[in-house]
């Protein structure tokens, strides 16, 4: 009974829990409740992944209205993998929030903060599990609107402008997606994603090509593909630490997932990559994203902003893998979604701890921190090495498949650019490391303590997972490659 209804429970539990937070009001109580909900959702997501890996794609008809007439929730290996990422990061973030949120959010707003967080979680999970294009848009809006609020709750007043900037860009993106979905409905008369793919006429009429264009650009805005990334650095820099860690690890990744869905499930690889020159457009953009954003990251003085630009670069790697449109390429892209969620989640959490103690994340202020917060900074070093792609970290696995994908296509230059890009990561990571370990603490700065246990634990869970999946990646790569095969239509 419960097993059958897991797909809907995944979404409904956090959705219903959100208004309950408003009723509870008391900050600690709300935190406890939201944490409980997040971990329940995580447990459900693990169960779902196991079910999908065992029995294949799950289809769930809402209200027993059979698809394609009713709304269908559909969980295939790709969505199973994604919902695990979102739910897992959500659960760990809540542990981190225990100490971080009371420090950064005024007490009277904390219950609103967790309400918004649960709504955001609902939206992101909904996007991943829904099999309905319009429903996907609705969940996208739920997650976007709540994330604008979450970002605007940042302690700095610039958080308001950052949130507003994101609101404008995000709304543009969402509107484009809505137009795209509307056009698809016009052509086919259906909104069910699986149904859509069968009903799109061949060769594609102009309307569906226009829909494709709107969907691509709209999604690219949401996932911050260079040069549509302008909202991201400010949003990540000024948002509360927990929000940055959560959104950096999930929001853009889910948008990458939307792109995968539209490209491969709705239009199919033939239309997207052989009839249309999508690969030829995405590939250069992805490479420019890697180099431009990494170069900008090198010159940042605020480490949070540095990592934000690094995120833009890492998204470049994911899109690069997707642009190959091969099993290895897609595997690299999908596995990097997972790995990068762990890396960036962990790094932003480490920075959150730094912010808690120092009140700033400027590189200069972090001088000498290696001695004062050894565990936090060790986590930062491990995450940084993973960003570079050093063996025994998960970043290495991503890089391995990306280079394999490029070599298999015979694109030597791309393979070289991929590895050169990681050198830029060495430079920006090492700026922080040299400051923390080689420079004495600034004169007059107060001695700070190591971060509280809850924050350290959350950080190290993600960093530890990141190291674990760097040593034994059979689970992640196995799931990702199955997802890639499903998306490419090689396995039903």
């Amino acid at each position, binding site marked *: 009974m419960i097993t059958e209804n897991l797909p809907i429970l995944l979404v409904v539990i956090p959705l219903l829990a959100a208004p309950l937070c408003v009723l509870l009001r008391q900050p600690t109580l709300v935190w406890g409740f939201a944490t409980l909900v997040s971990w329940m959702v995580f447990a459900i997501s693990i169960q779902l992944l196991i079910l999908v890996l065992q029995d294949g794609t799950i289809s769930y008809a809402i209200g027993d209205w059979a698809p394609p007439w009713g709304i269908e929730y559909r969980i295939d290996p790709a969505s199973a993998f994604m919902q695990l990422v979102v739910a897992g990061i959500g659960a760990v973030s809540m542990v981190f929030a225990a100490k971080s949120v009371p420090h950064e959010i005024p007490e009277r707003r904390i219950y609103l903060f967790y309400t918004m967080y649960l709504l955001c979680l609902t939206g992101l999970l909904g996007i991943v599990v829904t099999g309905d294009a319009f429903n996907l848009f609705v969940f996208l809006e739920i997650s976007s609107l709540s994330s604008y609020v979450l970002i605007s709750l940042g302690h700095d007043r610039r958080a308001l402008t950052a949130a507003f900037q994101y609101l404008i860009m995000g709304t543009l993106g969402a509107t484009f997606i809505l137009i795209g979905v509307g056009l698809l409905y016009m052509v086919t008369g259906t909104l069910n994603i699986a149904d859509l793919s069968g009903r799109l006429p061949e060769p594609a009429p102009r309307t569906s090509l226009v829909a494709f264009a709107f969907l691509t650009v709209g999604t690219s805005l949401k996932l911050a593909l260079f040069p549509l990334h302008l909202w991201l650095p400010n949003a990540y820099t000024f948002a509360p630490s927990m929000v940055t860690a959560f959104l950096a690890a999930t929001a853009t990744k889910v948008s990458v997932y939307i792109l995968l869905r539209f490209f491969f499930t709705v239009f199919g690889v033939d239309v997207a990559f052989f009839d249309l020159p999508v690969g030829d457009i995405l590939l250069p953009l992805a490479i420019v994203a890697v180099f431009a954003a990494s170069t900008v990251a090198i010159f940042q003085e605020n480490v949070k902003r540095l990592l934000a630009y690094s995120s833009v670069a890492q998204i470049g790697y994911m899109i690069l893998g997707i642009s190959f449109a091969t099993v290895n390429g897609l595997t690299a892209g999908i596995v990097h979604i997972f790995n990068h969620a762990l890396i960036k989640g962990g790094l932003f959490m480490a920075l959150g701890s730094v912010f808690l103690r120092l009140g700033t994340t400027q590189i200069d202020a972090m001088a000498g921190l290696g001695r004062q917060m050894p565990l936090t900074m060790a986590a930062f070093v491990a995450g940084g*090495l993973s960003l570079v792609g050093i063996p025994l970290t998960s970043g290495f696995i991503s890089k391995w498949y990306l280079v394999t994908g490029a070599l298999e296509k015979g694109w030597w230059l791309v393979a070289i650019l991929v590895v050169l890009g990681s050198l830029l990561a060495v430079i920006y990571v090492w700026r922080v490391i040299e400051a923390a370990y080689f420079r004495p603490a600034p004169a007059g700065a107060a001695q700070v303590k190591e971060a509280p246990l809850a924050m350290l634990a959350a950080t190290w869970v993600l960093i530890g997972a990141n190291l674990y999946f760097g040593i034994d990646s059979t689970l992640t790569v196995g799931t990702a490659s199955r997802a890639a095969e499903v998306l490419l239509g090689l396995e039903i």
Partner: protein
Amino acid sequence: MNGAAIGAWDICLPVLLPMAATVLIGLTGRWPNLREAVTLITSGVLVYLVVGLIQPVFEGARPDILLFEMMPGLSIRFTVEPLGALFAGVASFLWIITSIYSIGYMRGHHEKNQTRFYICFAIAIGSAMGVALAGNMLTLFVFYEVLTFSTYPLVTHAGTDEARLGGRTYLGVLVFTSICLQLPAVIWTWYLAGTLDFTPGGILEGTASPELLGALFVLYVFGIGKAAVMPFHRWLPAAMVAPTPVSALLHAVAVVKAGVFTVLKITYFIFGLELASTLATGEFLLYAAAATILIASLVALRQDNLKRRLAYSTVSQLSYIVLAAMLANELAMVGGGMHIAMHAFGKITLFFCAGAILVAAHKTEVSQLNGIGRRMPWTMGAFAVGSISMIGVPPTAGFVSKWYILIGAFESQQFIAVLVIVASTLLNAAYLLPIVYVAFFKKPDDEPQPNSHRGSIGAAARAPHGEAPLSVVLALVATAAGTIILFLFPGSVLTLAQQIVASGG
């Protein structure tokens, strides 16, 4: 292969033991004597374990173990074969001596953060064991990188600006070469051959056109930055900011030998001698190695800083082994394999001496060493023995390996290689013997040299000094004696080295 007597643990333990010891070293950090005891006992047990592995290899066994899959189809795997056993044996044995030396040096020099030092040192040794025992290129690459990053805190140990800059060069060159050249080469190999297992005779034969394979060979040889083939040698002199035990064991033995070991390994087990000798780029790489031998020796001539001079000498000596690999015949392989051991003993002696001079006399430059042999006879005596071994003159170990490389060069009709070896012998003599000469035959200067920087405080430099601490002197005498013993009884090393090529049959 019959490795019946050898269990999974026997193969993994040499790698795991030093890694596990780091926990104990960390826990005992507050009690230096106990901490050093942990290091010493670990190194002793390690040698015992490695010897236990070498024994069956002598008898022809090739113990092998597949640990787990890192990526689908790609495993972490250990295989014990003669070349790896040789490298593991040398590195682990010299770790004992270096540990004894370190205790005297680190305390005599009042170094800070000694616990961190011993922890990183143990990780570095563990990863050197991992490199030595790796059964496929992925495993080797993983430990190769761990070695790079675990030695970074050792290189920058002093924490000064000079150390930080040295560390930048160190990491910059090694990471650039490994990530941008070696990693693509490894992935390319995997893509071409569908396996990365080390197989005698190679795995690449016939998988791609000779031109492509030639390019791959170039990627490997330059990508193995630890082998320090010019122009990717700069990290080695930069690493000399490290405390002397690091320079001695890591930058004369473990790290650099991991580099040339990898070159030998890919030549023999990835390409195979037959393929390697036919590649068009082999000739080019041979000249690159030859040029490195000569240029590095010439640069060494001009270095006044003793450790830098030794570093350039190492660059030059490493390329002997690269040259041997590029000759791609069995005799040269034997010579190259032996040179790993022979050079290790000679060079570690020289570095030990440089450190002893620093601790006892606070001197770092060659020009300050006038007459020092009278005050530190044991140290400078050992230095003389090490120098002779570098030059390759009997009765020292350097002669034996050089001999084999030279015959290998004749066999391949590479007369340029022969000339280079002969010329470099003269150059080695030119930059090492003057040090021995001034130390023993020149009168001591009364005044400290004005350019004596690097912590050599004027008062300390003027004060009369004798020999370095006892443990330091013991260590350097032991390795010097080792160079002579290896000349007199090269049996075990020679047998192992000959088995490298015998296993290919």
